[in-house]
């Protein structure tokens, strides 16, 4: 093959241009963007649920649905409240009608009434995403659409999720679902858009009894963090090794 100097130059130019093209996809971040991207190393979001304070009013669920635009009547939700009734025959009865969005207005569970003399204990347990330290949902996402931020919250990229449902399967807590409108995986993210602006999550703000609190686990002076550090708290399903970061006061052994 013959190749004149002119050809060589033309080819070299084309090749260089073609090679540079992908580089244009990269860009320099501003100082502020870098700060957000790297997150604050002195921040790790945690959550405290005091089941002793929860009365099952469901205002948290309602607030969450409205704040996060989860279709109000769709039977899926980022957070919910469970009711437990334990009877003398050691049977555990659990329900969460409409995820407790409208509170617990019926003393019966699935139509079954309970004689108060037969009930040994009953209580409410709010549930939400545990923002696990080793999140199985992040591990199994085939495209990296769900990821953990440096401040501990697990987020979902709605533009990149392919909707395979593997993360939904991998979560032992059942907090994930497909968003009815966006058709991608969806779950609680402690209202990341709020907490990163210094606000409290919608459910925390809506709770009239202080049963839900958010905190920075790396700040020993945070009053909520102090409770987690100094009092006896538990987590749900720690046998899965996911290291959940939602802590519970008064968690009963019957809680699933």
């Amino acid at each position, binding site marked *: 093959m013959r190749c004149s100097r002119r050809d060589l130059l033309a080819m070299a130019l084309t090749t260089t241009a073609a090679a540079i093209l992908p580089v244009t996809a990269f860009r320099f971040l501003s100082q502020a963007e870098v700060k957000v991207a790297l997150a604050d190393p002195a921040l790790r979001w945690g959550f405290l649920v005091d089941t002793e304070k929860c009365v099952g009013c469901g205002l948290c669920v309602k607030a969450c649905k409205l704040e996060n635009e989860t*279709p109000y009547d*769709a*039977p*899926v*939700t980022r957070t*919910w409240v*469970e009711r437990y009734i334990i009877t003398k025959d050691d049977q*555990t*009865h*659990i*329900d*969460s009608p409409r*995820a407790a969005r409208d509170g617990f207005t019926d003393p019966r569970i*699935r139509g079954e009434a309970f004689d108060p003399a037969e009930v040994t204990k009953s209580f409410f347990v709010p*549930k939400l995403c545990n923002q696990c330290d080793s999140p*199985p949902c*992040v*591990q*199994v*996402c*085939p*495209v*990296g*659409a769900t990821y953990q931020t440096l401040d501990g919250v697990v987020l979902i990229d709605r533009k*990149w*999720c*392919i*909707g*395979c*449902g*593997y993360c*939904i*399967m*991998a*979560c*032992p*807590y*059942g*907090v*994930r*679902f*497909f968003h*009815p*409108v966006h*058709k*991608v995986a969806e779950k609680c993210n402690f209202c990341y858009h709020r907490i990163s602006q210094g606000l409290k999550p919608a459910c925390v703000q809506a709770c009239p009894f202080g049963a839900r609190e958010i905190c920075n686990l790396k700040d020993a002076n945070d009053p909520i963090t102090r409770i987690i550090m100094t009092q006896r708290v538990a987590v749900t399903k720690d*046998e*899965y*090794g996911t290291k959940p970061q939602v802590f519970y006061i008064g968690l009963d052994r019957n809680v*699933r």
Partner: protein
Amino acid sequence: MESMIVHGLEWTTKELFVYPNEYIYWSIQIVMYPYMTGLVAGAFVLSSLYHVFGQKDLKELARFSLVFSLALLPTALLPLLFHLQQPLRGIYVMLTPHFTSAIAAFGIVFSTYAAIVLSEIWFVYRQYFVEQTLALQGQPGPGLVIKRRLYQLLTLGAYDISAPALVKDKKAVKILAATGIPVACFLHGYAGFIFGSVKANALWMSPLMPVIFIMSAVVSGIALCMLTYIVIMEWKKLRSTPAQDTDVAQVSRITVMEEVIAKASRYLIGFLVAAIALELLDLIFRGYTAMKSWDILRFVLYQKDFVNIFILQYGLGNLLPFILLILPRLTIRRTVIALLLILYGVFMMRWNVVIGGQAFSLSFAGFMHYHLPLLPHSAETFKEGLLGALTVVSIPFILFWLINMIVPSLTTDQETP
């Protein structure tokens, strides 16, 4: 109201306490997916038995099953696309694979496997492509010209069909078939890994899952190849007229077929025994160790899904065909019945794993029931319903019919030029 479909609501019913967000998210297409990849892997392993291990009497079946595994290949993709909530983003698995996920390996394993199958077929048929190109040279008519161009393209410019070149081809086939076996096993073993590694699911989580999947894959692949082979051969027999087909040729073809089938069914029995042994080991182990989840698992296995698991899968799908195949004086008809039952049994195994794994709540305090959508009334109930599944099943046969027009895989030695 905006389009608001809660995925899974359509076909899930809940019993007792189930978390609000729990539904049967992985439905019929996820049953089809391991079933179809299993058939692909099994078909390839069967063809390799001849190419690698020199099982001469499997020669007829080997060429057929190789081409059939190519026809099956795209159908391993299809159920996934039907299942995805965002099918147009499916390619992201290849673009941004997240390697801690078992599914991320899909792109790599699948394309490696596809490359191996395609190149092996090319080496097997290269001589044929060249011969066709030469034979069609100068033939009139646009149809034949196109046909010749196609074969010319398929030769990829390699026209050397001298004896040493063909020996090299054979060697390449052998190497490709040998590398293909672990890749085929990996393709399917990783499908088992996808389930086996889900620690949240008490029924799925088991290190045996990938091995069980591979064994049952080979079983179903061999069974499907044998069945299709028998059907096609019988059909050819019916169609051939005495003028075209001498009695001698016909008789020899039937004996060839019977020998092939007898041999293949011996392999089938072997893999079947291995598959059942592993599954039973898994079951016994779960019962014996009786971890926290065993209470609900036992309830699902022995009561809710008893008929599906023990009657339909183990009884009808494994035990009965096993007896049919080991009884002496095996006839083609009995083989066909046994093969159909085996294919059904492996399908039920996939069903019982995928659907059975979602039959109980993560709370261990409730159950979910799956109702397969029969008549579609939306895109979703078509894709994840009976019709979607039937589409997936029928496509390999249509593809095979098309591919077989170009690379004939059903001729016996007497007929090949």
